[in-house]
Each structure stands twice: as structure tokens, then as C-alpha cells.
């Protein structure tokens, strides 16, 4: 056997050599890269799928808030059309996939055919003043997107038979406007240039024009009875036309002595320049005439007629600015206050704790109210609100920093630093403070959704008024919609959706950060 052979062998000393002669021995250099606290936190944060998703969504919302105001032309930012306010989302490119500005309503025969009549009127030509309903349905200006007979005949009164989706932009129909003499030719030229019809004949005021006193006067171009049902004249007497797809309206346009349609009426002013004329325009094309664009509002329009997408983006921007400002100011004050409290302890701590006890005891809504009542006049709502948030908001941060300082200040490494002659400042900020950063960052992030929420709530309640044509916050949008949202749900849905999304995402993001910064959880998720 080999082993016995080996045992018998005698090995001479000189055959031994030192393995590590003339070599200095060191620890091996770490082959893997060292990972610091933040890198480690980031590493663990990345593995939390929900938080990463939330972060991406926050990124998108941020991008939305920053990019939309830049991409929106100035002309649209300030564009506020009184007739196109509170409308739903509409886009000519995406018209067929549902962005048709429509609202579903239950309509009676009278109201349904009233909508059809707008399409007929829009297709007016001097040769054929009244087209059939079938032809009007093909018209681009016909507001009824779709309709169907209600199967549930018990619904309300028997007259409300249809449920119809009506394009609210086209439903504005015709409007009377007052223009100067010189404008008339400009409009005619515009019509020719764009091959669109803008000016339509005026409507006669006679025994058959009952709609003339209403706001929709310009839409009642057909002869009606006192109940606004269309009529035809049979032997000098009005007879209601039965509602059907084949019905033919009898027009009530204003004609001059030679039976020509009248397009304008002189309403005042003497000279050529100052003379005012009343004309009847198709509002949809009039909009294109004045603003040079079709009414494309991806998110609809707000209660005043501004573009909702733009208002929403600026609202998100303002709410986030407030939230981030509050969060960072609280971060600084809270860190300083808590560090001093926690590090020095004793009487300093006792006094400072009492002060923060008192401040935190004042109900927040009272703080905001007092700041608004006392300061909003002098410094504006925005600064007033910011000050109110800062006045008591830092206390939570301070107490968590204080607790961390208590935990670390008597540890050996701090004692070592002190023995080596480090100043209080150095120990506080260089040795203890970095340990508190994790919790501090987490709580600062979680402040953001809190501020967004309370801002929106306070605006909704009317305690703060950040509104204005140039500044909007998410809460202002909500409070604008508060009294009318049941008729115009889109005014409320968009801001409420964005706020909810922001709250959910920031909470998830904050929770992810909290777990990532907590070294005790390291490895637990594997």
C-alpha cells in the first residue's frame, strides 16, 4: 500500500521550502464591490415590485405635470370659452373611440328631434334649406352620436323614451352674436378659404317662433307651437308634425321682400366702422374661426371653460410644489430641532418638548384657518398655507430624529469620537445624524401624500382659496366641481382620480422606502 511506503520514507530538511517566503501576507481584497447604506437600500427597494411600479407612475404624473403646460400653446392656456365650459373629453382624431364629448341623457321625442334639427340646420343651403333627417344624420355637425329606444317603458314619464349620447360641443348649436360691419366680409372670406359654413340665415320672429326667448333661440329655426313642438302650416293654422324619422320640418328663416335669406340685421351704431350687426353662427365653426382650431379637449373643459388637461397639469404641479416645499422645510427644521433636543437632553429637551407638545396640540385645521384669516391678506393664500403647514408640520420629524439621537448618542463609537476630541457639532452631524437619515427620508416622503390630501380637503371646504385663472391646485378643481359635478361628472372624476393615484403611489413609494431603509429586514424577503 502506498501509505505505508510513505511512512517509511525519510524526508530531508532541505527539501522543505517555505511556501510564503518574502511575501507579505494581507487579507484578500474584497472581490465583490462594497455596498454602502444607500446603495443597499436602493438595491432592496428595486426588488419591491409594488413600490417600483408606484415610482414609475409617480414619474409619469410628474412628467404629465411638467410637459403638458409646456406643450400647451399659450393661446390654449388662456383660452376660456363660455359656451364650451363643463364639457366632456373630445378629440377629433379619437372621436370614434369614444372621445366624442358626449353625455348620455334620457330624451323625449321633442328633445331628440330638437338635436336632430341642429344637424338639419347645419346642412342648410340656399338651394335646399331643409334636408331630411336621414341626411342630417350624416352631417358632421349633428350632435346625436347614438340613441336607442328605452326598453324600460316604466322609466319616468312615458315621454322620456330615448337614451341618447349627445355630443355636448355640437349640441351648443347656433348662437346669435353681434359683430361689426367690417367683420362680416372677413367671415365670408374665412368661409370661402376654409370651405366651411359659418354664417347662417336669421330666424323670423312671428307666431311660430316660440323658442325665441330662450337661451337657445338661435336653434329654433323651425316653426313651433307654444310647447316647442315643430309644426307645419295647414291652411293658415299650425298643426303639430308627428315625430318620426320621415318628418319634414318647416323652416322659419327670415326672408326679405324678394324671398332671399337674411343673414344680418343692423342693431345699432351709425357709421360704417361702428355699426353693429346681429348674425347667426354655427358655434362649432365660429370657435374654429376665432381660435383657429377645432375644440379638442382630451380631458374636457373645466367649470369656466379652460382646458381641463392643462388645468389638471398645473394643479398637480402646484400641489406637488406645495407638498415638496413643505416636506423639505419640515425636514430641515425637524432635523435641527430633533437633533438639538435628542443630543443635549435634560432641561433643553424638557423645554423643547413642551413647546412641541403645545404646537402639536393645536388642531391643524385651526392653525390653517388662523393663518388664512391673519396672513392671507398680506402674503397671499399660498404663503399662508405654506406657513401653516410649516408651523406644526415639523414636529413629527423632530420627534423621530430625537428618538434616534437618544438611541445613538451613548453608543461606544460616539464615546470614541468624543474621546478623540470631536466637537459636539461634528458628533451630531457627522456621527449620529447619518443614522437617522433613513427614517427621516421615509417620513419626509410620506408627508407628501398627506399634504396633497389636506390641501385638497381644505380647498374643497373653502378654508383656503388658492384659485385663480393662473394658479390651480387639485383641491381648487375639486371645489370648482363640488356643486355641479352630478351633472358634469368629468369635472370631478379627473382631479379625484389623479389625487387618488398620487396618494396610492406615494404611500406605496414611502412604504417601499421604509422597508428598504430598515436594515433589520435585510434578507428577510428572500
Amino acid at each position, binding site marked *: 500500500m502506498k501509505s505505508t511506503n510513505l511512512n517509511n520514507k525519510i524526508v530531508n530538511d532541505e527539501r522543505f521550502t517555505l511556501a510564503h517566503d518574502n511575501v507579505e501576507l494581507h487579507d484578500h481584497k474584497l472581490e465583490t464591490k462594497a455596498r454602502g447604506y444607500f446603495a443597499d437600500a436602493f438595491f432592496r427597494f428595486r426588488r419591491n415590485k*409594488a413600490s417600483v411600479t408606484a415610482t414609475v407612475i409617480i414619474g409619469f404624473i410628474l412628467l404629465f405635470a411638467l410637459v403638458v403646460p409646456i406643450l400647451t400653446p399659450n393661446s390654449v392656456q388662456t383660452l376660456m370659452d363660455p359656451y364650451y365650459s363643463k364639457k366632456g373629453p373630445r378629440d377629433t382624431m379619437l372621436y370614434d373611440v369614444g372621445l366624442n364629448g358626449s353625455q348620455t341623457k334620457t330624451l323625449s321625442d321633442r328633445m331628440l328631434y330638437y338635436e336632430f334639427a341642429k344637424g338639419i340646420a347645419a346642412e342648410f343651403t340656399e338651394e335646399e334649406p331643409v334636408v331630411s333627417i336621414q341626411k342630417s344624420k350624416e352631417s358632421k355637425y349633428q350632435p346625436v352620436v347614438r340613441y336607442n329606444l328605452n326598453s324600460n317603458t316604466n322609466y319616468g314619464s312615458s315621454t322620456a323614451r330615448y337614451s341618447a349620447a349627445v355630443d355636448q360641443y355640437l349640441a351648443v348649436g347656433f348662437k346669435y352674436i353681434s359683430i361689426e360691419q367690417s367683420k362680416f366680409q372677413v367671415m365670408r372670406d374665412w368661409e370661402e378659404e376654409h370651405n366651411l359654413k359659418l354664417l347662417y340665415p336669421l330666424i323670423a320672429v312671428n307666431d311660430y317662433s316660440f323658442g325665441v326667448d330662450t337661451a337657445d333661440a338661435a336653434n329654433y329655426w323651425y316653426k313651433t307651437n307654444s310647447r316647442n313642438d315643430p309644426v307645419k302650416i295647414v291652411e293658415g293654422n299650425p298643426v303639430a308634425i308627428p315625430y318620426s324619422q320621415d318628418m319634414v320640418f318647416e323652416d322659419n328663416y327670415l326672408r326679405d321682400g324678394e324671398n332671399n335669406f337674411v343673414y344680418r340685421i343692423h342693431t345699432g351704431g351709425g357709421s360704417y366702422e361702428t355699426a353693429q350687426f346681429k348674425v347667426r353662427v354655427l358655434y362649432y365653426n365660429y370657435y374654429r374661426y376665432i381660435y383657429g382650431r377645432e375644440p379638442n379637449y382630451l380631458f374636457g373643459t373645466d367649470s369656466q371653460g379652460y382646458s381641463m388637461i392643462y388645468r389638471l397639469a398645473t394643479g398637480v404641479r402646484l400641489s406637488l410644489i406645495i407638498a415638496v416645499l413643505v416636506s423639505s422645510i419640515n425636514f430641515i427644521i425637524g432635523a435641527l430641532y430633533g437633533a438639538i433636543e435628542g443630543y443635549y437632553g435634560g432641561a433643553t429637551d424638557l423645554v423643547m418638548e*413642551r413647546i412641541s*407638545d*403645545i404646537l402639536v*396640540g*393645536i*388642531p391643524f*385645521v*385651526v392653525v390653517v*384657518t*388662523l393663518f388664512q*384669516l*391673519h396672513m392671507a391678506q398680506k402674503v397671499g393664500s399660498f404663503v399662508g398655507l405654506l406657513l401653516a403647514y410649516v408651523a406644526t408640520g415639523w414636529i413629527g420629524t423632530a420627534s423621530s430624529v430625537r428618538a434616534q439621537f437618544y438611541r445613538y448618542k451613548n453608543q461606544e463609537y460616539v464615546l470614541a469620537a468624543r474621546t478623540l476630541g470631536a466637537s459636539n457639532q461634528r458628533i451630531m452631524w457627522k456621527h449620529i445624524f447619518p443614522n437617522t437619515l433613513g427614517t427621516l427620508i421615509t417620513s419626509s416622503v410620506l408627508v407628501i*401624500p398627506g399634504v396633497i*390630501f389636506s390641501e*385638497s*380637503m381644505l380647498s*374643497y*371646504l*373653502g*378654508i383656503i382659496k388658492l384659485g385663480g385663472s393662473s394658479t390651480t391646485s387639485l383641491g381648487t378643481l*375639486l371645489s370648482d366641481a363640488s356643486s355641479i*359635478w*352630478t351633472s358634469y*361628472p368629468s369635472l*370631478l372624476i379627473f382631479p*379625484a382620480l389623479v*389625487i*387618488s393615484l398620487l*396618494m*396610492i403611489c*406615494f*404611500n*406605496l413609494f414611502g*412604504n417601499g422606502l421604509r422597508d428598504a431603509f430598515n436594515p433589520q429586514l435585510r434578507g428577510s424577503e428572500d
Partner: protein
Amino acid sequence: MGKYILKRLGLLIFTFFVIVTISFFLIRLLPQEMPTDLNLAAVIKARWEALGYNEPLLIQYGIYLRNIFTKFDFGTSWKISLTTPALEVMSDRILPTVIVNLYALLISIPVGIALGIYAAIKKNTWQDHFISTVVIIFVSVPSYVYAFFVQYFLYFKLRWVPTNVMYSLADAGGSYFTLKMFSSLILPVMALSFGEIAGLTRFTRAELTETLTSDYMLLARTKGLTRGQATVRHALKNAMVPIFPMLISSFIGILSGSLIIEQIFSIPGIGALYLFSINQLDYDIFMLMTVFYTLIGLLAGIVVDISYGFIDPRIKMGKK
């Protein structure tokens, strides 16, 4: 224990006193508006003169405190309900607030705790993941969004409830406890409950998962208890230690109510009164509301801390 409670109470009174003082001066410093009706203005002016509203602020403060201590008089309403004592104006409005919030709490507590227990027992199964995901969403979404949501769908679309706002006392038959009144409270109670349930579920789940993995659970199982027995007798009991004080503070919190829910559902409660008082600048009411909210907040805090000491024998209060 007694010493600790006394110390906390002392601090509470001190804090409360300071806050009342600060609020008093800040509120009295606000400009006063007289009604446009000259007769009324003259009457109010005369009353103010008699009540010492035109004295220097410090003396006013002295009068204010004296009235509270001697007559329990917190001032008078000058705008909302002319010359009615402020305390009376407020006490009329406590009941609606309490009812709505109490209903919400009575629904939320059992549902929330049950869901939390279920999620904790089923930890890391699809049921748990589902509950946890829904909870994250429901905790984050603001209560007013639920309010709009239930109003829109349950009233405007489906008409499952008879009204979208709270009935007035007269409409509901003169009492807050009629069936008709209850039917009008379903929506606000729902709007309040969603967030409350989600919060409780999350809290219960977190506490229970922690106790379920404790060593004493292992011991209990080794002794021969079934999983169910061990959970009910040991884990649940211990998980309740932090949950119970939270519930107590919720019960105190129902007094202050929710400003926004009261606004949306037209509930004639405390929150609505607060908004009235600041919109109409009825300062005595505003002051009383401030005092009230402060006291509720402080009390909730101290009761939570003290209740820990009673519930959990491991916690020895005031001992270093």
C-alpha cells in the same frame, strides 16, 4: 401608575391652557365685522360693551376665563344664532356628528378586525395578497372620493338609497333615530367606513402576524393546543394590546367628526358648525370649537397612553 396619570393630567392641563390662551388672543385680534343692519349692529355693540369686548385684550381674557370658571359660559353666538350661548349652539350639533361616526365605527371595527385576522392567518396566500392590495388602495384614497363614489353610484345611478344628503330633523320625523333618518345616513357611514376598515385591517394584520410568529405560540402548540386554540388564546389576545388603545382613541375621535364628510352630505354637525363659524366670522363659536377640538385631541392622546398601562401588564408607566 397613579403618579404617572397625575403627571400626564398635569401636563395636559398646562398644554391645554397655553393653547387656549394663544388661540384666544389670535382670534380676538381678528377684525370684527358688524352686520349691515344698523339696529342689529347697535344692539350687538351695546351687548359687547356690557360684556367687556371693548376692554384691553388682557382684561378680556380675564373675563373670558372668569365666565368659564364661574358660569361655564364660553361666550355667545353673534352671527349663526344671535345671542344664543355658544355652548348651546354647539351642543345641539354634537348628536348628528356622533351618530354618523358611531355607526361608521360600529361597522368598521368588526369588519376591519375580522379581515385583518383572516389575512394574518392566511398569510402569504392569495387571499392575504388580495386583502393587502385592496387595503393599500383603500387606505390611500381620500374619504371624499368614496363620498362622491357612493353618492354617484348608489344614489344618482342606482337609486338604492332615498337621498344623497342627510335628511333634516323635520323631514325624518323629529328624531335622529328614526328608520328614515338611518336610510339617509347609509351613504356617509359607508364613505367613512371604507378607509376606517382598511386601516384597521392593515393594523390588525401587522400585529397578528407578529404575534403568530412569536416563541410563545410555538410553546403553546408544543403544549398540545390546536392552531385555532393557540391563535385565539394567545396570539389574538396579545395582538389586541396595541389595537385596543387605537379603538379607544377612535371612539374619542367620533366627537370631532369629519369636516369634509359633513360638508358633502349636509350633516348638521360639529364640522359644519366650524365651517359656519369661520365663514361668517362668528368668533366666540370659533373659539369654542378650537377649545373643543384641542381638548378632544389631547384627551385621545392621554387616554391611549394610559390605557396601554392598564391593558399590558408588561408596561410599567413612569418607571425608568
